[in-house]
């Protein structure tokens, strides 16, 4: 894809937009349409576009598959840790009310952490799947 100048310029312009929109969907998920799963998929789509235009080898240098495996596990651990922290603080599993003195702000913090874990894991797994399928 070296000679496709238009595609390369457009991709360089649009990839940061996609990643920024993924973060918007991630952090605005409490108030509007969005959430961790959708944000993870959009975030992975940005890197898939990078791999399509600049080649899989360059994307593998940016985000090696080992790093993806670690971040996929880390997101799941964040989800599990948030759930278990509810038990340790005296509530049920995934009980957000005990995270802060005020139940509303506790729920905000809890859903933010949960969605962050989901987003990290989904982005890592989507990109790992793409790496496996795109291997020549």
């Amino acid at each position: 894809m070296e000679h496709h100048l238009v595609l390369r310029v457009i991709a360089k312009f649009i990839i940061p937009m996609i990643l920024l929109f993924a973060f918007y969907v991630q952090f605005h998920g409490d108030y509007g349409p969005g959430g961790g799963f959708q944000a993870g998929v959009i975030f992975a789509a940005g890197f898939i576009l990078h791999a399509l235009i600049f080649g899989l080898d360059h994307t593998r240098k940016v985000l090696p598959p080992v790093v993806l495996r670690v971040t996929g596990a880390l997101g799941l651990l964040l989800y599990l840790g948030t759930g278990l922290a509810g038990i340790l603080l005296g509530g049920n599993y995934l009980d957000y009310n005990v995270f802060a003195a005020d139940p509303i702000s506790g729920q905000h913090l809890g859903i933010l952490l949960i969605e962050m874990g989901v987003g990290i894991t989904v982005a890592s797994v989507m990109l790992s799947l793409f790496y496996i399928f795109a291997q020549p």
Partner: protein
Amino acid sequence: MFAAAMIAILLAMFMSLCRALLGPTLYDRLLAVNVLGTITVLFIAVFGFLTGRPEFLDIGLAYALINFIATIAVLKFFEYRDMGRATEEELDI
């Protein structure tokens, strides 16, 4: 007003869908699918305003970004028969 725009968009979607199904060559079909994606973004936006929920614009934005990637991916696959390759010298192997 939004209802009239909705009917026009649905008509345009139907016509581009016909072209995607009938198109004699691959590029007719690809262009039709790309146009269908663009019309879908308009559809989502108009539907959001029709039902009084302008948050739908977020979904339209996401659709526009992903639709671009899908078209690039299909075109690249039919041009190179491969998703991962980048440069011309690798193709000469």
